[in-house]
């Protein structure tokens, strides 16, 4: 256990970590069982500090909340990941790096089931097919990018296909946080959807014309209109 990072558990339980360290610590947390147990106890403790300052809100709040939830769709339960072993990925003949990239990306895509992608949960086959088709595009750009907090992401983008695919292992986040994908073109930053952490994730999203970067941030659950934190990953897509 890394003692230095481990001392952040208190600040983390109090939501007092600056964003730079938040991603790093959550990455560490997903690999450190002792730390998760400690954080759990400290969170319970912090919650009691909150309960100690209880104060009743106006009655009208309840009617507003009850009226609003009647119109808000709930997130479906998390889908269990299926074992990837049965999946046979037919690899096309490729040369050098391309073949390697394709193999790596397809293997990742094969286990990318738990993604809450932009609009739908894609089937495994569709995901692999899409990946292959994207890689086959004459203008496909493949980049391997470091993730803040460790690990790497593969980003495949094709201007002609107007698609960008992102795959990486994303550490589990606290339920009140989510990963959010962004396409960036000049000054314009557009949300490309939300992805939950907790395993290898793959998402294929539209690449609006003029996009030059693709990024991922950690945002409050439900996502943000514009990024509110430093990206955990940023890749050039041209």
């Amino acid at each position: 256990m890394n003692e230095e990072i481990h001392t952040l558990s208190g600040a983390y339980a109090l939501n007092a970590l600056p964003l730079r360290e938040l991603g790093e610590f959550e990455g560490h947390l997903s690999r450190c069982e002792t730390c998760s147990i400690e954080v759990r106890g400290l969170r319970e403790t912090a919650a009691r500090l909150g309960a100690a300052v209880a104060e009743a809100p106006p009655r009208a709040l309840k009617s507003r909340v009850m009226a609003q939830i009647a119109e808000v769709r709930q997130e479906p339960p998390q889908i269990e990941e299926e074992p990837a072993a049965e999946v046979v990925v037919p690899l096309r003949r490729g040369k050098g790096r391309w073949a390697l990239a394709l193999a790596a990306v397809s293997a990742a895509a094969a286990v990318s089931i738990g993604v809450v992608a932009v609009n739908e949960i894609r089937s495994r086959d569709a995901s692999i097919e899409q990946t292959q088709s994207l890689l086959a595009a004459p203008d496909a750009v493949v980049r391997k990018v470091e993730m803040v907090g460790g690990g790497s992401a593969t980003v495949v983008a094709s201007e002609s296909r107007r698609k960008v695919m992102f795959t990486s292992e994303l550490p589990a986040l606290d339920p009140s946080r989510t990963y959010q994908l962004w396409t960036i073109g000049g000054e314009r930053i557009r949300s490309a959807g939300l992805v939950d952490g907790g395993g290898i994730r793959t998402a294929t999203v539209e690449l609006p014309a003029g996009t030059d970067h693709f990024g991922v941030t950690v945002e409050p659950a439900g996502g943000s209109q514009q990024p509110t934190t430093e990206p955990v990953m940023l890749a050039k897509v041209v």
Partner: protein
Amino acid sequence: MGFVNDVVPLSVTGRSPELDELLTSVARGDETAFERLYDRLIASVFGLIRRVVRDRAQAEEVAQEVMVEVWRTAARFDPARGSAMSWVMTVAHRRAVDRVRSAQASSDREDRVARMGGEVAYDHVAETVTTRLEGERVRRCLDGLTELQRQAVTMAYYGGYSYPEVAGLLKVPLGTVKTRMRDGLVRLRDCMGVER
């Protein structure tokens, strides 16, 4: 059954299996369970948010966002990873902190206060003997901390400050603040008898 605010304050000690079950039912779309969960938790949720954001109208907005988020994302609650109370309070604290950190630049803040500040229909049911007793116990535990531990924990939790901000305000090194926050919480945990 109307919206009578039948607020039951949370117990500071012990985990409530009933709350965990309620939240699990909420994940399945049970609005009655949500209403009961609301009644049980709203005073804690609102009190915490109010302590962090201060402004009452903004606190109401954030509390509403929090409860709707609880409804929307209840499926993510995993009883094996903590109590329902801790889960909900974490969402509440995160949202409150996000609000104060982003609202520092917001210029429409005063406008909003002026627009919504007139509402005065408060409910005092929650101010029961129980709340005062539980609050008393937490305060006793806080008194058991060193001055620096207590300041570090309360400035972060009730003030919404990040640990580097706390270090700056208290003029102590970053590393010291980090360890005081952890030591302070560990001592509180043991004092309150929180299950691990």
